[in-house]
């Protein structure tokens, strides 16, 4: 125990800002060749009413073999926030589980949910301090200040924007969004635009496809819907 960092006589109360309070993060020293990747196109749009997130459903090995056709790549991590799985599936899943339990612990202790900025900061710290190298999620959420869309990059970079895309189909999806997004979009319009962006990527990116998942986040909560056919979502 370093007495300068810690007052606990049992030596276990020092909090490292860059790692989870609960458990530790497993390192990823396995067979990197055969790691399942999401490939993926995940889109987040902020509107005045909330945040719309759309993702495809494909998991692949290096973008050349489809290893799963119905992955739900967006998950609730907080009463009014959701995160997408992008990159190594194992890394992204444990990242999401870790953030969900940290957010829950924070809320239980303080009797108020984390702000989305705090959640994004914590996610960035974990990405920076932990071994989740191969992830690039979008965090969408609503708090007292309004709607937020953040990207968290593998080195811990945290950037907020009105709309964002991550994953192997990002250039195609961004092409659809540029010039079409505006902050006054209704939820319906945002759903349509996000769907078209994922659709464009699914047509041309080998790492994206097999349907669509849409998450709608408002101050009431998170709703996630799955679609086999993109046309159903429109």
């Amino acid at each position, binding site marked *: 125990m370093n007495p300068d960092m810690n007052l606990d006589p049992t030596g276990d*109360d020092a909090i490292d800002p860059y790692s989870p309070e609960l458990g530790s993060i497993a390192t990823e020293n396995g067979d990197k060749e055969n790691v399942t990747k999401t490939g993926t196109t995940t889109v987040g749009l902020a509107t005045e009413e909330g945040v719309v997130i759309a993702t495809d459903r494909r998991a692949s090995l290096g973008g050349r073999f489809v290893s799963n056709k119905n992955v739900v790549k967006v998950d609730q991590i907080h009463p009014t926030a959701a995160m997408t799985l992008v990159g190594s599936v194992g890394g992204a899943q444990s990242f999401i589980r870790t953030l969900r339990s940290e957010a829950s612990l924070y809320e239980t202790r303080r009797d108020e949910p984390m702000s989305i900025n705090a959640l994004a900061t914590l996610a960035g710290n974990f990405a920076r301090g932990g071994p989740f190298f191969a992830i690039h999620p979008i965090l969408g959420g609503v708090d007292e200040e309004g709607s937020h869309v953040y990207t968290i990059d593998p080195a811990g970079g945290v950037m907020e924007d009105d709309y964002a895309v991550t994953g192997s189909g990002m250039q195609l999806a961004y092409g659809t969004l540029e010039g079409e997004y505006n902050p006054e979009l209704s939820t319906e319009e945002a759903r349509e635009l996000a769907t078209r962006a994922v659709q464009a990527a699914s047509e041309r990116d080998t790492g994206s496809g097999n349907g669509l998942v849409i998450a709608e986040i408002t101050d009431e909560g998170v709703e996630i819907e799955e679609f086999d056919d993109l046309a159903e979502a429109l």
Partner: protein
Amino acid sequence: MQGNQQQQAYDRGITIFSPDGRLYQVEYAREAVKRGSASVGVRTEDGVVLAADRQARSDLIERDSIEKTHKIDDHIAIASAGHVADARKLIDFARRRAQVNRLRYDEPMGVEPLTKAITDTIQDYTQTGGARPFGVSLIVGGMENGEPRLFETDPSGTPYEWSALAVGGGREDIQEYFEDNYEEGLTLEQGVGLALEGLAEPDDDGLDPDGVDLQTVDEDGVLTVGQDVIEEHLDERDLLGGDDE
């Protein structure tokens, strides 16, 4: 003889309950707090006031070196009563914890979570072999989401929230004064007045402005109130004591 030896065992061992369920070392730590000079806290509409009596045992001691109120972060301060050295360890713990919160969440530490982090640490020292309880009570005051909050920590590691409180020597008299005179909706200025009246309550001789350490915390941050302002407040209330009289 046997009985006497057992009594000594639970008297000395901090982690040992007495047969009637008491932890004597924790109770002795509370006594240590009573031996310290008083500190008070008052919560007002706009912020909190922390004030402490810093008695000097000699005229040659530099008063500023007797620190009883401490800034923790831009929005939180702590006043202490009891063993100064024990208080300092907890003050430094609180300062680090407040910064860890900013690093981890990019937001200021709440007053309630900070108080609970401190009391959890204090509690560790009542249940760990070889440790000694902290002989200090703290008053933790600050702003949380725009609201003034005021807490007490005691040597057992229990947190309490207050509108106005005193810890340390003369606690009963001061607390009774606050109970009779505290009202909701005080301005920060009125809170400073009430804190000084409380601090002066146990002693008929009034207060020497030099012997009062006073900080306020409001939306603008932590402010150490100067001797001249304290003197004005004391003079207005006819509580001015000190060396000249």
